């Protein structure tokens, strides 16, 4: 059952203008003006409000936010897997597919307008998901091999039993497991192995997009790094794009190309990972970066962000972050800022401090370290100083 789209419930907003993708590269998944509500009418909770996000082909886009900020809701709604009482009230999600055979662009599909059959054709084969709890995602009463077999038999009817088994074994080896694990039940494996098996299953049909929803949150740091390194290696080899959802911003700085920050159901800042880390523009991002104690150097008292995340049923007016913002202005208490590009091109921010004639504080105007950077080796701009 797919998440219902009830677009007539929302007030007719301004039409969503097709916007240039920030990185200019060709997007594989474009989310435009997506709104998701839990419940109907006046009591509805606006879990996701007016989100625009685009995932470039072969890129890793990190989506950071605290619990309840709507990051998982956004991703699940985009593939219409959000459970009741979640309803999509506005927006479109464009999937720009490419045929696996010749790389030719296939017709663009709006996932929010698609029917069950069209969604079935896309889910898992083109857009796969890895969830936080592999123990819940895997079937406890059948072996890993049987689950692979069922998956491949359904989606690749041409394959014989033996070739399905070979393919399953190859997939497990791809994620650092041995093929004899096909005989294991999920409960016989450690948490890290289950998550690896889950990733292998997500890769089984060569998807163009992987949605990673807190894939390593339940794991120990050593296993977490092993799995993320493997995933990024596979990304380089197989070329899928990934939407990586996590609450751990410090992890995204290391592993994502671009990072989008969500707060209270809205996208608040979007920038290349190194730029966001070295030179945040949004007060919330700045505060969040100062919530991770450093591993080196002098220890000093850090204050984090005062207050606590807002109650989604009772959001403050204006910018939802203003009660916790040290630079809040009168305007922040009244008007909701929109995510708009900054002069520096590749990044967007939703903050009044960067609009019109407002003067942004020095902390939020650190020089952006280069625009295009290799993913693995962020260049430190000496003049930028230490952001954390």
């Amino acid at each position, binding site marked *: 059952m797919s998440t219902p789209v009830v677009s007539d419930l929302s007030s007719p907003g301004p039409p969503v203008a097709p916007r240039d993708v920030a990185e200019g590269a060709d997007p594989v998944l474009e989310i435009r003006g997506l709104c998701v509500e839990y419940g109907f009418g006046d009591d509805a909770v606006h879990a996701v409000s007016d989100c625009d996000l685009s995932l470039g082909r072969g890129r890793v886009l990190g989506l950071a936010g605290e619990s309840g900020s709507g990051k998982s809701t956004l991703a699940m709604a985009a593939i219409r897997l959000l459970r009741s009482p979640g309803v999509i009230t506005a927006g479109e999600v464009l999937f720009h597919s490419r045929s696996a055979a010749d790389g030719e662009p296939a017709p663009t599909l709006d996932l929010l307008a698609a029917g069950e059959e069209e969604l079935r054709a896309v889910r898992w084969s083109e857009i796969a998901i890895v969830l936080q709890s592999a123990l819940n995602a895997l079937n406890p009463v059948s072996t890993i091999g049987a689950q692979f077999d069922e998956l491949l038999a359904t989606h690749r009817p041409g394959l014989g039993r033996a070739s399905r088994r070979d393919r399953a074994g190859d997939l497990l080896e791809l994620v650092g497991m*041995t093929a004899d694990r096909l005989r294991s039940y999920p409960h016989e494996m450690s948490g890290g192995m289950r998550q690896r098996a889950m990733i292998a299953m997500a890769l089984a049909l060569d998807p163009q997009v992987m949605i990673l929803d807190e894939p390593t949150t339940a794991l120990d740091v050593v296993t977490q790094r092993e799995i993320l390194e493997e995933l990024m290696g596979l990304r380089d080899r197989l070329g899928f794009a990934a939407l990586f959802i996590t609450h751990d911003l410090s992890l995204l700085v290391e592993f994502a190309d671009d990072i989008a920050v969500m707060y209270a159901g809205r996208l608040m800042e979007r920038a290349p990972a190194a730029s966001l880390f070295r030179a945040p523009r949004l007060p919330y991002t700045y505060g969040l970066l100062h919530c991770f104690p450093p591993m*080196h150097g002098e220890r000093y008292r850090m204050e*984090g962000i005062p207050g606590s*995340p807002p109650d989604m049923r009772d959001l403050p007016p204006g910018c939802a972050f203003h009660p916790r913002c040290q630079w809040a202005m009168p305007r922040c208490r009244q008007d909701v800022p929109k995510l708009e590009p900054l002069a520096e091109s590749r990044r967007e921010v939703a903050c009044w401090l960067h609009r019109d004639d407002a003067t942004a504080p020095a902390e939020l105007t650190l020089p952006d370290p280069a625009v295009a950077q290799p993913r693995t080796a962020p260049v430190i701009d000496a003049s930028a100083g230490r952001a954390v």
Partner: protein
Amino acid sequence: MTTLAVAPNAGTETPVLEGRGLTKSFWVKRNSGLLARRSRLHAVDDVSVQLDAGAVTAVVGESGSGKTTVARLLARIVKPDTGEVLLDGHPVAAARSRKFAAQVQMVFQDPFASLNPVHRVRHHLTRPLQIHHTADGDVDEAVLQLLHRVALDPPAKFADKFPHELSGGQRQRVAIARALAVRPRVLLADEPVSMLDVSIRLGVLNLLADLRDRERLAILYVTHDIASARYLADTIVVMYAGQLVEAAPSVTLTDSPAHPYTQLLLSAAPDPERLERPVLAARGAPPSLLAPPPGCRFHPRCPHVMEICKRMAPPTVTVSPDHAAACWLHVDPADRVVDGAGVTPGTSPNPEGEAEVQRPP
């Protein structure tokens, strides 16, 4: 934080709470029906920790390393198989007495589970005040005082709330206030911030730091997050597979780790500041505690493994003043040869231990 003194009194004072040689194993049931049998799970093996007044000691380890069991042993919630707990240098009676509870209090990981949802905050704080007679007269006034101490202002407003009306950070503050109600000298905090949102974790850590500095509490901080341990703690002890592998002042430990496992943990921890992708110092997973490998329990994963590591448990070596590591690498090669104690026939590597050496590729 205001004081960053490392190794607060370096053994000159008697520690407030001390665990000596704590060992605990649990019996777990494996299989079912005719094949059912009970096996011994070695959760904690010969662990000694000291908690000094006005200092935070962090216990860092992966899940299953036994760090929570150590906290529970120190709180006398779990009885050790061998070893003893000393309060002010005196052994504590086996039963958990009210007198002991008035000195040593625990703060649990999940503030959503540790507060009773049908009672207001006032009730949670009134109960310990009444049971331990620590209110000095006006109980209501004492409740407000407690809320003020954990920075829940205005106290009168928070006293009348139910747990579900509070955010996670506020709930954890209430749980800390409840622990403080009996005027303890030791606080055992088991992963107090891991369930909280990132943006409010520092607030709770800073509260613990303030309690240490202002009220000279001895605090045990159990965590899997080595960065937060470095931030808060004066001393860090690292646990692996139920054993202590390294102990040092926190900056020393994170800046110059001596044990290969600590090096592995540090190489795996997220660190946006680092310039290039770290090379993981080792791979694989911790061993099963039902049949821990012989010798050093880390040897199947250790990149520097030597023959002796597989056969004999390493001694605790003083790497530098206040810095100890249990690793053969820090033993003079001349002394690594089997000495008087000798390698007894029972310590030869068993087949299971050998199998552990191979990790999944």
